[in-house]
């Protein structure tokens, strides 16, 4: 199944009414293989528990290099939990327990010898709500390189590179010393992306990065994701199916299955495929119901 197929992430089947990014990105035509040939990260038999609560059941996924993978599904389906497993942010939740393997370049990041802090320098994360630090714009960017002890020749240059990378430089270059709290919500979120890329990660996780932004700011961040795809591997959780259809190369659909005895809802992966197929021609009935709006 490794023969390449031409995939249009933008021009999906017109019978499914989803947005199109083709007018925004002329280069939205991408040719990607059916399965990631050289996955950067993979999950094998991933189970997550919060105390006794089984949050995620047996997820197997592989994330391709320089691709955008979207995790979609109804609330409580465990997609954010899966995302947080990828850079061990779940370690910070009291009572959380992870079973199975998550590999980064073949190394299980849940192995005993692995330092979660080192994992996070390779796998960065952008959060749902923009969370700039109460510092200047410059210091927000410089914070990451400083705490991880990056050898930096010129911090000013690194800050500029990061801000240019997040398409924010022109808007903030004259106010680098001002508080990041003076920026708009969309600018703050791009600042958070700039802050993440300043530490030069390999993978960027985004947990509903646009859910608190207005449509214009959302489209800026989406443009940015597509630009960043050339240099980074991006995994995004989104509630917005149009967003998944617009920006992602592959989509994983999760759903929640209530436990028969306790009623607790355990998240599981239903279907994982090229975004064009998920939206145009899903295999599973549950996927079809969800993306056509009959459920969730």
């Amino acid at each position, binding site marked *: 199944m490794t023969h390449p197929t031409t995939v249009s992430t933008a021009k999906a089947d017109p019978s499914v009414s989803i947005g199109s990014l083709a007018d925004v990105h002329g280069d939205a035509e991408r040719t990607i293989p059916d399965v990631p040939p050289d996955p950067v990260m993979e999950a094998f038999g991933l189970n997550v528990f919060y105390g006794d609560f089984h949050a995620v059941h047996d997820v197997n996924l592989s994330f391709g290099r320089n691709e955008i993978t979207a995790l979609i599904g109804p609330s409580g389906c465990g997609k954010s939990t899966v995302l947080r497993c990828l850079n061990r942010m779940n370690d910070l939740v*009291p009572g959380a327990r992870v079973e199975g393997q998550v590999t980064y370049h073949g190394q299980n990041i849940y192995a005993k010898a692995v330092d979660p802090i080192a994992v996070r320098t390779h796998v960065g994360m952008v959060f749902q709500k923009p969370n700039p630090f109460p510092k200047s714009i410059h210091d927000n960017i410089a914070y*990451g390189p400083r705490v991880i002890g990056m050898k930096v020749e010129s911090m000013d240059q690194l800050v500029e590179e990061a801000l240019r990378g997040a398409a924010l430089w022109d808007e903030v270059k004259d106010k680098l010393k001002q508080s990041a709290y003076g920026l708009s919500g969309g600018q703050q979120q791009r600042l958070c992306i700039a802050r993440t890329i300043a530490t030069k990660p390999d993978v960027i996780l985004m947990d509903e990065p646009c859910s608190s932004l207005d449509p214009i700011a959302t489209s800026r961040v989406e443009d940015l994701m597509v630009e960043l795809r050339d240099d980074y591997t991006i995994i995004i959780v989104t509630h917005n199916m149009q967003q998944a259809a617009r920006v992602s190369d592959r989509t994983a659909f999760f759903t929640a299955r209530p436990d028969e005895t306790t009623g607790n809802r355990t998240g599981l992966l239903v279907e994982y495929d090229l975004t064009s197929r998920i939206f145009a021609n899903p295999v599973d009935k549950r996927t079809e119901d969800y993306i056509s709006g009959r459920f969730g």
Partner: protein
Amino acid sequence: MSIATRTAREVTASTIATGRSRDKTPGSLLFLGALWFSLFFGVMVLVVLIVSTALEGASRFDSNLITEYGSILRPEETGFRAGILGTLWLMLTTAALAIPLGIAAAIYLEEFADPLTWYNRFIEVNIQNLAAVPSIVYGLLAVAALAVVGFNETGVVIGGAVALALLILPVIIITTRESLRAVPREIRFGSLALGATIWQTTWRQTLPSAVPGIATGTILGLSRAIGEAAPLLIIGIAGSVLFDPDGLVSPVTALPIQIYDLTSRSQEAFQQAASAAIIVLLAMILSLNALAIFIRNKFQKTW
């Protein structure tokens, strides 16, 4: 205008332009009056106390009050120099002991401790309880603690400071934890996701953001300690000290102790001096509280 429109207007006029507000019925006005009375009562008692004390001590608001030592022979010239300086010494030493310990304990509980383990929950419950323990018990505790380490000088600065530090430690821990908790989790996650350690996150993000709250809580704790007499009596601090304290093991007195000492004497002049000293003590407490309010308003962060 159609009949329907006209009818709608007339009905509306009679339902919303009633000429009275239901927020101003006799019942609600009575309730408002009761609230005002409660407020008035509390404030009035305080004002009466302060004014009557100030009037009684009015004749003693002179420079002798703060520059002279206590005198039994000349009660009309007795002063509180030793008490004021002693209180300052005690406060500084108490702050030096209690602030680092309190902040460190709060940081451990809030940032590092696993809230699910039984011993952390046990500590948590007990800190809440400690804040309600009577102050005299802390005096006894300090005596015991100093005796255990073999320190048996009574009535010295370090003894009083240990008692007062124990007294305000729970207050500092609780307020510091609250201000740490007020720093959004998103800030911590943002820092940790960049590859910062918990220690770096605490030191560079959480703690600086929490400083205004910590400062406010600490100062309010100190202003509680400044008025305490009971634990200082237990630790052996006497009212009749006739020299300036000059070190941690120097015998010392404090304003509340001196006030307590003078009010038990019969001469009118001593009563007046005690009243004047109460006003001095109140001024010290109020200026500490004012400082706390200033810090809170000036540096408070809104997220």
